[in-house]
């Protein structure tokens, strides 16, 4: 926990401890820890002289931030209009079925977090799933299983919960 606090202070310093850099500082924390730990939020609030509840209002308002730890692998399904029209929801359904979680949740073993995004701007490749920053375009329902198998070749594709 102490090292978390130290990291936060380094981010604060990077942004000259300015109130207006709050979102940028939170983004740094999110990138570092894959979520916003409570102690980090408290440190930011006190260092910037902002009410903790206001920091939390901002942290919960935006999609980029997560108050709960995210899984090892982040799967993001694009649900932009173009991808929706090309069958994006059916791809999401398949991921939800195979991972046994709903969008926004993390698998119990902490391996996968499934999220959705409202347009990545790569509409020609729709429907798209992004896994750990890698774009997988022209997704088909059967591709889901193939992709997931890459991460757990030793297990069956249906996650046991």
């Amino acid at each position: 926990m102490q090292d978390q606090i130290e990291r936060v202070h380094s981010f604060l310093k990077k942004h000259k401890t300015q109130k207006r850099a709050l979102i940028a500082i939170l983004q740094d924390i999110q990138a570092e820890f894959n979520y916003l730990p409570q102690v980090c939020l408290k440190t930011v609030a006190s260092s910037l002289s902002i009410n903790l509840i206001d920091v939390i209002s901002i942290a919960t308002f935006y999609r980029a931030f997560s108050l709960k730890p995210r899984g090892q692998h982040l799967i993001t399904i694009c649900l932009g209009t173009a991808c929706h029209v090309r069958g994006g929801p059916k791809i999401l359904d398949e991921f939800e079925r195979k991972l046994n979680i709903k969008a926004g949740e993390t698998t119990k073993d902490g391996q996968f977090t499934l999220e959705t995004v409202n347009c990545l701007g790569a509409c020609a490749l729709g429907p798209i799933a992004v896994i750990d920053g890698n774009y997988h375009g022209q997704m088909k329902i059967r591709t889901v299983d193939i992709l997931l198998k890459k991460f757990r070749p030793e297990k069956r594709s249906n996650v046991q919960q």
Partner: protein
Amino acid sequence: MITLKINGLEVKAEEGWTLLDTAKFYGLEIPTLCYHEGLSIYGGCRLCLVEIGEGPGAKLVSSCTYPAEEGLIVRTDTRRVIETRRMMIELMLSIAPNSKVIQDLASKFGVTKVRFKIRNEECVYCGLCVRICREQMDGRAIGFQNRGYKRKISTPFDMRSEECRLCGGCIYICPACQLRCQGPEAETAVCNACLTMDPTCLDHYEDLQCWMYDAGRCGTCVQEEKQSK
């Protein structure tokens, strides 16, 4: 001084007044819910809507936030205003059906049915509790979180807040978490039904833990109970 017209009447407003300030000064009644004289303006309940301008460009604005402007034409009770106001009340009733304040508004403005599925949240997200905590009581215990349909009011991390001083201001000012009047069927002469009810923490603790009704919402009791188990 700013000169404008409200309901055909020429009125004068001071610099910095809103349309609501002006109307109140002249004794013109505009319903409000999230507005409170001692607190900052929010503009979320949309009850205080008035119609400004004329012809195709006329639009509805919340009088509590819109500043008085020179030459503005304002009408407080056009058909558009009344129909929209009724819909706002209907929406509020659908999420806080037991609230006496909102039921009174409904009867006053002729809302007799709710055509949406009732989803009782005992809260209309007017933000009065947040504002009284912060501005009048100098507490920083509760605030808005999330956005859209997931919006909620809670303490940081839904846990007991170190900032909460149990002043009860939030309960005092809340228009939604109050029961409807029992009327002539009340069990006793002084039934208290229309005042805020007893907190659930007394079921678990000797002392009152938190002053926000509905333990699930602030989470304190639930959280502590989980931890003690």
